[in-house]
């Protein structure tokens, strides 16, 4: 599903370029649950943003579902993000002064512009936050905010979920809830790429990719099969 080959990403001007990714090649199959680990500055987030079509590589090729996304324009990338990719962030990133239901509707605005209320209801139900639909983000706990963010990521039925430290701002109980939810989604067929620096969290994934200094330092099979610990 995802095929990265020789992906390099530089930041900054040509004078003092900072290399975030150096010639990373990686394949992720449909329905896989992959964790990306590594110390800060190792290029995890950059890799995730490139996979999520939020950023484009300086060089290299990225093929998503048979289409070469590394050559696409803004409008096409936006449509791919809208239709095929869901995002979950460490700090939730719900839009302020916008209710949970309105946050969840947001991706629909940028699709055909039609708001499918039944679909919104369905995903709110799925993440068990229907009772908070009319609330504003600041009225929610961290766990609730992250569940709302996951609902927003799911509303357009993406095939790929990108999660950047999804439990990083949560206590262990709420973190465990979110991880169970991700495992459920994975079991239902969603492809998940998740960045974490927590080994316990990474253990939920089927495969762990370790980054160091912008390169893949190792790939390990999961110590415990996803779901076995539940």
């Amino acid at each position, binding site marked *: 599903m995802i095929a990265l080959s020789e992906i390099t990403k530089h930041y900054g001007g040509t004078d003092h370029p900072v290399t975030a990714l150096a010639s990373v090649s990686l394949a992720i199959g449909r329905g896989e649950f992959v964790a990306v680990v590594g110390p800060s500055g190792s290029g995890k987030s*950059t890799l995730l943003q490139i996979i999520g079509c939020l950023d484009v590589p300086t060089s290299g090729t990225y093929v998503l579902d048979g289409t070469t996304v590394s050559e696409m324009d803004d409008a096409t990338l936006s449509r791919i993000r809208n*239709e095929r990719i869901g995002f979950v*962030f460490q*700090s939730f990133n719900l839009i302020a002064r916008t209710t949970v239901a309105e946050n969840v509707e947001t*991706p629909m605005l940028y699709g055909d512009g039609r708001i499918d209320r039944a679909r919104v209801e369905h995903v709110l139900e799925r993440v068990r936050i229907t009772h908070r639909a009319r609330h504003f983000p600041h009225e929610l706990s961290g766990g609730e905010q992250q569940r709302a963010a996951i609902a927003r990521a799911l509303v*357009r039925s993406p095939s790929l979920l990108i999660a950047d430290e999804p439990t990083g701002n949560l206590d262990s109980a709420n973190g465990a809830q979110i991880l169970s939810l991700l495992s459920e989604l994975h079991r239902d067929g969603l492809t998940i790429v998740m960045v974490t620096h927590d080994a316990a969290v990474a253990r939920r994934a089927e495969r762990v990719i370790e980054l160091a200094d912008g390169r893949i330092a190792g790939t390990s099979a999961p110590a415990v099969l996803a779901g076995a610990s539940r």
Partner: protein
Amino acid sequence: MSDATVRLVLRTLRRNKGRSFVMALGFIVGVVSITLTEATGEAARTAVRQSFRAMIGDLDVLLVQPGGDAQRGRANLETSITTLTADDAAAIRQSVPNVADVGVAQVELGAVVEANGRNTTTPLFATSANYAVIRGDSMAQGAFFTDDDGRALARVAVIGSDVARELFPTGAVGQHLRMKAIDFTVVGVIAPNGAGPGGFSMDNIAYIPFETARRRVFNRDYLNIVNIKLANPSRWAQTAAAVHALVRQRHGTTGAALDDFRVTSPQAMIARMAGVDSTLRRMLVWIGGLALVIGGIVVAVLMLAAASARRIEIAVRRAVGATRADIRGQFWSEAALISAAAAVIGAAIANGVIAAGAFMMRAQLSMPWAATLGAVLVTIAIGTAAGYLPARRAASIAPADALRAAE
């Protein structure tokens, strides 16, 4: 601007009421100020026109009066310039095109009128019989005197309603009054005209036949007013020029010599007196325009600030599928919609103020729709222009950078 974008923007504006209000304020002030300035200007024009109507009657006339540039600065034109005559009036009637009728008048501004042991002071007009028709006066009682009255040097008088009320509380027609030591019989009372420019009542007046006055009362030939009724009022300027040339020639004024008479158009005088081009009025319009410009600057500054403050929101929208064009459209619509809303609110407030003013002060205020529409359109144009740069700035935010900074 798609339906969904409009709904989204309206929601943003609604949920940020304080900010929306500040963005709208300059525009509201501008539209209100321009509308009210225009409305009061129109009201001033109407008021002046009404007072002139009371004084002059029909405004589609030209007035020829003695005293021109040659007499500038001299007082008492009533009796000191003796060159304007009935023959001038007859010549105008005969040879100037576009003249429908010509009336003549001798005037004494302060004549004492006595009757029933009372007296009052009034302007006394000795006029041709067509004078009331040219003025457009109507009669409250009786009738205006006729040409026959003039030819017979009849001692008849027509009085204004103030004089009638003062001297003849029980009915004036058929009664006698005394002016300039001569007895007159009242044959008519003019219907009330109201106040003229300066607030004087135009109903304090007395008319007697011109021929009677010329032979028996004033004992002079020269005129104080020639009142020319125009056939086609829109050609007043050409007609005024023709009258001017004719009278100048008849008075033997040639070359650079100065006139001893003047030709005036009430319409031109009204435009001057209404002061619609006054400095104050121009300044008010400028202030309104300035408020609109300041409003535009406020919108631009606040939207630029919002583009920075809402980096995460913008990045998230981009992440879930918004294109650069979507973000640009959202910000631009925000500026356009706030300015449109502010313009409409401003127009509504102005409308309310005008309605309240018209009601409370019984002023003839009405909504100057053309000016208001103009102000509304200018406001929307300024608001849209003000949103352009912030919209571009917002659209140029790289979602990857913004999100990386947030984590």
